[in-house]
């Protein structure tokens, strides 16, 4: 907690001074041509018009413009194939944009794939020097930092063993240690923070926080929305190669969740139609609302929720139970109950039945939640379940994070 608040103050004081720009992206587009022939023979045979038919054009980025100020941490969000990694590679100079320009200054290090430059036959030590040279460090600089790197990686005497004998964890730890010690002004990170064991992950996160305090710029691609919210001060949502949204991390994450939701609904409709024919029982609907709130509005802590579910069964059903589960957007169960838990026996089901559950005074954490509605045999065997029958969004918690919220306070008792 203390570290987070102090970081916030550093950032606000920084905002007052003129902050130089480190990366400007102007109208950048990137076209990929996907060819289906790859050898000389095929190329010659399909020369000319048929050749063009054999290749497809695909715009991975369309007119992207961004300005990134020094010292900021920018998250790139977007569904798979939305151009996040392409943009990151273009900033890193690995891919050349088809049109538009990317300008940048300062030393750049890319954590795109850890250990990309490692050669299996060389020892750890040799690879450290090779890899740091690839990342732009001179021999002297590397020698100076070698002990730090070794310490951070924590692989001890294995440093003089060929890296092909390393465990995958050691490999990645060493690679990360090298990359993080290159003293970059701009750091590009693509999905690599989830490496190593928990202790090492923590170490990486601490290092990233330290980088932020030192005014380094971090551009981060991650599918972990929590991580983006935790680390970034701004975020950009990309969809089909275009900038969909640009703003604070929180707003961007919300926007991105909406995109995912739209997609989920489309998929669910397609799936639901196919399923219906097979099972004799069906969850016709499942809805959730908060008392006194308009549909689509965010739920607030303390709200009372009403869950309404309608079931149908082709044959009469003497004994059955109804229930629901609520999961957060990562699929973690947050709350669930059913009629048996509550000690209620349903009347026999003839045709359709509608039940209503009430959840009083909810204290869920901020974010999106999903409702799965189901009914089952008395022994618990599901007759039918409607996954993600409804979705609701809890207002973000300004005082904490996690899946539940608790009234918290703090006082200093010593020092």
């Amino acid at each position, binding site marked *: 907690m203390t570290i987070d608040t102090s970081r916030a103050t550093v950032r606000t004081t920084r905002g007052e001074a003129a902050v130089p720009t480190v990366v400007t992206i102007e109208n950048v587009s990137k076209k990929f041509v996907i060819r289906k022939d790859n050898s000389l023979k095929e190329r010659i045979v399909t020369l000319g018009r048929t050749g063009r038919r054999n290749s497809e054009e695909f715009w991975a980025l369309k007119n992207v413009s961004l300005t990134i100020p020094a010292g900021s941490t920018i998250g790139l969000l977007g569904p798979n194939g939305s151009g996040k990694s392409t943009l990151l590679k*273009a900033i890193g100079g690995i891919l050349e944009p088809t049109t538009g320009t*990317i300008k940048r200054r300062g030393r750049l290090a890319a954590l795109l794939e850890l250990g990309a430059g490692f050669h299996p036959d060389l020892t750890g030590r040799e690879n450290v020097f090779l890899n740091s040279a690839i990342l732009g460090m001179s021999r002297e600089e590397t020698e100076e930092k070698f002990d730090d790197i070794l310490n951070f990686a924590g692989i001890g005497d294995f440093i003089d063993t060929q890296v092909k004998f390393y465990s995958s964890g050691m490999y990645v730890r060493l690679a990360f240690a090298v990359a993080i010690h290159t003293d970059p002004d701009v750091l590009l990170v693509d999905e690599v923070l989830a490496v190593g064991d928990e202790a090492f992950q923590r170490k990486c996160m601490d290092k990233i926080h330290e980088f932020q305090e030192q005014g380094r710029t971090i551009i981060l691609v991650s599918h972990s929305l929590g991580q983006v919210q935790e680390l970034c001060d701004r975020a950009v949502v990309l969809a089909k190669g275009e900038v969909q949204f640009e703003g604070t991390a929180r707003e961007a994450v919300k926007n991105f969740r909406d995109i995912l939701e739209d997609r989920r609904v489309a998929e669910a409709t397609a799936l639901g139609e196919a399923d219906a024919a097979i099972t004799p029982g069906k969850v016709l609907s499942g809805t959730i609302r908060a008392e006194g709130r308009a549909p689509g509005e965010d739920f607030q802590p303390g709200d009372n929720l009403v869950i309404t579910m309608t079931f149908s069964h082709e044959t009469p059903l003497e004994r059955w139970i109804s229930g629901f589960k609520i999961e957060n957007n990562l699929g973690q169960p947050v709350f669930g109950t059913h009629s048996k838990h509550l000690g209620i026996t349903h009347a026999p089901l003839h045709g359709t039945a509608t039940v209503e559950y009430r959840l009083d005074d909810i204290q869920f954490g901020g974010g999106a939640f999903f409702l799965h509605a189901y009914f089952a045999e008395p022994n618990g065997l599901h007759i039918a379940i409607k996954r993600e029958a409804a979705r609701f969004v809890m207002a973000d918690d300004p005082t904490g994070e996690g899946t539940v919220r608790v009234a918290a306070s703090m006082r200093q008792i010593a020092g």
Partner: protein
Amino acid sequence: MTTTTPPTVNSVTQAAATQAAARFERLKDEPMQIAGQPIGAFTGFFGTIRDVIAHGSLLDLLIRRDLKSRYKDSALGFVWTLIRPITQLVIYFVILGQILGAAKGIPNFAVYVFCGLTIYNLFSEIVAGSTGSIVANAGLIKKVYVPREIYPLASIGSALFNFGIQLVVLLVATVVFGKFPAHAELLYFFPSTILILIYGTALGLLLSAANVYLRDMGYLVEVLLMLLMWGSPIVYAWSAVATRATGSKEWLLHIYTDNPITLAVLGFHRAFWLGGSESDYPSDMLIKMGVAGLIGLVLIYVFHRVFSKLQGNFAQEL
């Protein structure tokens, strides 16, 4: 956290903040640069040279990596670099020279053959090595930006190392089979080697880039290198060709003689092989070499332009 536990949070933040301010100050003065390869016909070429020089230590490490990994875990290690050319020498010397009788018109045939082989191996290693270099380093190219010219150049470096070893063998051979070539013509070594380096670099740049788009290049190059070897006077005498290509066929002789590989091989003969006389060599060799060298330099420039045009799409084609 254990290793980086700060004394107090405040002092660390303070230090970080001043560090951040210093960083911003420095960044403000740095000019904005276009990400990736420098472009533009002239600035691009020299910009790349500057870029490559800036990455000199990386080039050095890449060459070491190539050499180290090549014979890693083998018992004989670098001795293998010697065994291959020596075997080649024995085959050509015994089979071609003694059994097929190619040695008859050529005194000191062993040294003669090894001269040609040494310089030609340099050329073929450069070309074959750099052709595959970009594809072989695909992992790096897709993940990190360094000037891509470094990869073919690193192949040239490791080829040069092997060349050095063979050169030592050649010098020992001159002593064993005759006497050390201590004469002024030994200086022909330099133009010959430079000529091969120029053409190796030019072709290496072109072929390494082309190989990314057409993987057939690697195999094509193998075949062409084999052909080229017999197209230069390595195991037979230049004069044997010169006496047969006369009159209306003289233009053929010009093509044959004035190509850089033949010139380099002849230069090597002049430098290390003592059995030759004036009639064994074409006239005005130095001038011819100079002209070939200049053309080669132009080719480096042109092929580098091709390389930098193509390199923008390397990462996506690999």
